């Protein structure tokens, strides 16, 4: 049965090169839904731990402000974690896996950022 979260995430697969997306609780690591290849999006708990570690290290280095995104690139793939602020609730992470040959990282990331608020609608 498709959930409301999954129905929202499916629309994000329209962007070229995006192979899988998942919506994850940035604090608990709970995955609320996924679309496409869920393995490409990554494990929710690991994504949340990674983001928390990066926030902590950036904070110790004196960085101000909230984390916006984490982008990891291998020879064949990109993995992007976009932070999604939620009114009156803990933040979320939109985890997306991209095929490096088909995706334009800058355009795909911007497109995800622009449409991320649609996910909660």
């Amino acid at each position, binding site marked *: 049965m498709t959930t409301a*979260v999954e129905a*929202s995430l499916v629309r994000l697969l329209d962007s070229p090169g995006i192979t899988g997306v998942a919506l994850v*609780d940035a604090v608990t690591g709970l995955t609320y839904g996924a679309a496409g290849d869920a393995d490409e999006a990554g494990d929710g708990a690991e994504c949340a731990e990674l983001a928390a570690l990066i*926030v902590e290290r950036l904070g110790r280095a004196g960085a101000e402000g909230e984390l916006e995104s984490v982008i990891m690139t291998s020879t064949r793939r990109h993995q992007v974690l976009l932070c999604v602020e939620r*009114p009156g609730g*803990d933040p979320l992470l939109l985890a997306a896996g991209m095929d490096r040959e088909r995706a334009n990282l800058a355009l795909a990331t911007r497109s995800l950022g622009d449409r991320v608020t649609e996910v909660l609608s």
Partner: protein
Amino acid sequence: MTTAVARNLPALLQGLHEEGYSGTVRVSGSPGGTIHLRGGLIGAVETPGAPTATSVLLTPGRLDDETWLAACAAERDTDRLGAYLVAAGLMGAAELEIVCTASVFDAAFAMAIGTPGGWTLDDPEPTLLAGPGVEPRRLTEETTRRIVRLSGPWGAPGELARIRPGQVPDAGLRRGLPDRHRSVLSTVNGRRTARDMAFTLGRGLYAIMLDLTRLEAQELIRWETGGAAEGRPSTAPRVLPGPVAQDAPPTRTTPTASASKAAPLPKRTPGGASWPGEAQARESPPGEGPAGGRNASPAGSNGGHGGL
């Protein structure tokens, strides 16, 4: 599968899932709670140990009280209240689903770290539901992961939940802290437990406990001395004033021995009258056995024992 033969709560829920059961499972114990099933899927879990989805919506101000009361008045069937909130444009369907799903997992975690009790089955009760619901197996696996994640030097998550973290001077002035951590720091005062903070902020218990461990690792809070090791102060055996026996046997060195060092336990004299009220003071509360309540009073005819 019959509920009478279920060995524990996860087995019961899995059996009810296979039956496509719709109804309510009332779980005793501390904190205990209520599990709402629809078509075999878990649509909501309510427990005194963690904020409900309603609290998570109202406390941080995602919905104000007037809007909420108006919605409740307009849609009196709580099972359909979520659909009403979405149709009225008060929330997105996905956002509501996220809040309710998070609440299911958080309440299950809160119940799992407490003392397990029995259960009884009941008819369906209206409640705010998490979309189609959560499969019991996934709930069990996630709860197990959370318990493992929060087991540490302090012991099991149940011990961590009893700690009342204390402030570290100037912690709030540390640069680079996310707003979420600052809000948790603002509630740390040496008297609140993680549960108290969860209700104060309208956030999940597990999320708060996770944030506390991260803050402690950064030395921004401190575990109050002996907070976890002394167990539950409110239910600890009362130490009555009186003479101290000189030939008291040495106490074993255990994490719980700190209280004994502070005030050695009196020794019963054979044939002599014990102090008034001593026997009552040492008895376990009714229905709780010495092994963490495993001998809790059994549930009804459909009852059993076990935590998530």
